[in-house]
């Protein structure tokens, strides 16, 4: 089985527009490098030697294919049959590795000696640092100062892989500001530097390219569930921050109208509190980070800070294809609050012996809520377990201590 999506991929829309969303809203100086990147991606993606090398990396370096695990106890009190797509078992501990290897190989083959990235929780930064070590690239990761403190172990991991981590103090000192800083770096450095965007957001071609490299999650899931259950799932669910793991698993089911697609955003402390990351639920159309998408913003268009217990969902924007899938009704989106995600995190640990990433725990929480709302309803469900929860242990321990002390 090939891990690289067959060409031509239907995921490259004209000029990067998904309905009214997407596009390329960047300073003029970044247009030529983005056009060159799009050309390089289309050319190399169809090159058999590129595909063979990426296949090899995904298989023998990253550990693909990942298993599809049928849960035994997590929803045993309902008629839901739940499978987990185990991206948590991928090298690096999250689905990020899939597309990082794709872009890193592209950067390598187009002669870039330096790779820059933005990171929020640090998972994407770690994946880039890891792949940069493998390919001998100079890696610079921009990370909000606040996130550097919250995610200190990941900063250390990146440094171990030889990357330079640059704390970003401007703005809200989190993911969106790290992305601004990476774009600023790239405006100056594009000749010898690849900007390795971490999700299906940003200017065209990033949403399409990252989506194409993550599609492997959905392709594997679809093939295996058909083999084991003899039919397609009723529901496929995934968490949505920028949206790459969700798009990766959705992609293979978009043309199957019978498969319900559910994206789960960060409900934070509750949508009504204003402290959340639920862009699809509460955002308005706007322009940020090179794309027209939904955006958490105030009345006059200043971008607002998002809030989530999980740094990976803490982003005031969302990939343009998700905004489009919501607008067309092909996918539906809901939110899980911090508290629900934390409960699901603990529940999966206790019932299945698996520690999910706090991000993925949002998807589990939403599916568990639906299953318990209609316990008699027999449904075949797949949740993309996009990452493992080891990175969250310190954070979760502090939160649970806080609750115990109350």
């Amino acid at each position: 089985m090939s891990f690289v999506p067959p060409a031509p991929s239907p995921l490259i829309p004209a000029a990067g527009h998904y309905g009214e969303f997407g596009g390329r809203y960047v300073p003029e100086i970044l247009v030529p490098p983005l056009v060159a990147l799009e050309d390089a991606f289309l050319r190399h993606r169809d090159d058999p030697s590129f595909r063979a090398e990426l296949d090899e990396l995904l298989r023998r370096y990253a550990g693909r294919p990942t298993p599809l695990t049928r849960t035994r106890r997590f929803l045993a009190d309902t008629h839901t049959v739940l499978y987990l797509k185990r991206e948590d078992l991928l090298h690096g501990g999250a689905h990020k590795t899939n597309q990082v290897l794709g872009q890193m190989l592209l950067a390598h083959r187009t002669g870039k000696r330096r790779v820059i990235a933005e990171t929020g929780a640090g998972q994407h930064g770690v994946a880039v640092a890891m792949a940069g070590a493998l390919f001998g690239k100079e890696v610079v990761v921009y990370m909000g100062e606040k996130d550097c403190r919250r995610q200190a172990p990941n900063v250390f991991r990146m440094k171990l892989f030889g990357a330079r981590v640059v704390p970003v103090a401007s703005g809200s000192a989190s993911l969106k500001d790290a992305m601004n800083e990476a774009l600023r770096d790239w405006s100056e450095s594009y000749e010898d530097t690849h900007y390795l965007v971490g999700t299906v957001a940003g200017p065209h071609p990033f949403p399409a390219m990252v989506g194409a490299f993550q599609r492997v999650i959905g392709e594997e899931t679809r093939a295996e569930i058909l083999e084991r259950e003899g039919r397609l799932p009723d529901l496929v669910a995934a968490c949505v921050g920028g949206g790459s793991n969700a798009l990766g698993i959705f992609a293979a089911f978009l043309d199957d109208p019978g498969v319900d697609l559910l994206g789960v955003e960060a409900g934070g402390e509750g949508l009504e509190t204003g402290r959340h990351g639920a862009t699809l639920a509460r955002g308005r159309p706007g322009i940020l980070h090179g794309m027209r998408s939904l955006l958490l913003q105030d009345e006059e268009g200043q971008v607002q800070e998002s809030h989530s217990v999980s740094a990976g969902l803490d982003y005031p924007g969302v990939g343009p294809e998700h905004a489009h899938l919501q607008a067309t009704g092909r996918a539906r989106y809901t939110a899980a609050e911090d508290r629900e995600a934390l409960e699901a995190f603990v529940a999966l640990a206790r019932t299945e012996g698996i520690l999910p990433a706090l991000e993925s725990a949002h998807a589990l929480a939403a599916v568990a809520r639906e299953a318990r709302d209609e316990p008699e309803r027999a449904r075949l469900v797949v949740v993309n377990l996009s990452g493992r929860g080891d990175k969250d242990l310190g954070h979760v321990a502090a939160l649970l201590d806080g609750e115990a002390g109350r």
Partner: protein
Amino acid sequence: MSGRFTRLFRRLDGEGRGALVPFAVLGDPDPATGARVLETLAAGADALEVGLPFSDPVADGPTIQRAALRARQTGTTVARGLELVAELRRRHPELPIGLLVYANLVHARGLGSFYARAAAAGIDAVLVPDVPLEEIAPFAEAARTAGVAPVLIAPPNAPENTLEGIARTGREYTYVVTRKGITGVDRGEVDPSATVVRRLAQLGAPPALLGFGIARPEHVRRALATGARGVIVGSALIERLEKEPASLPDYLAELRAATILP
């Protein structure tokens, strides 16, 4: 359309000078001080470019980011910023004023409504630094409908078809960027390539103003030697404002002396 910038360039041609165009963030460091800064600039320069503070100024370096943050923290909203311009306009009926505004502030208000408000405040031209030529059409159309000139940025790496598009779409002036990167003074040597300026002139583009990294009289002279019709001075000026605001009139005079063509 013959606007204030066009009339300025005509007058300066007669005087044998290039235009000195300072850039300031509206309401920096606070609305009252910011209004006085605009007066000082208007007194010592030929035209102004002013920026509305935005949460995510992706085309700007640390200096202008700091300025935008100060302005927002002291209460300069879009409405307040445009009021500052309107006050300036009342006192200087012939001063050419360009506005730099990030796309989302235009978009959030609705394009037509935003440009109409800009026109009502007395703004001559609007530049949206994160909207390149390929996405400019609705912005340029809304601008022209409101009687405001759309201004585009020509970077050093722009291919021929982009320069053609800029020449076709822009009005009043063209912002020619002297080097790669973002705004700021010490981010690499200024190398005002004459090629882009010459090609834009051949294509009939609006007059070129050169910006990015211009801080000293010799930068001004080198920029004008390319055939550009003026310079935009942003970060260097804001650094002055931060460190020794009293020296601003002298600094402007020094730069302005360098705009006299040899």
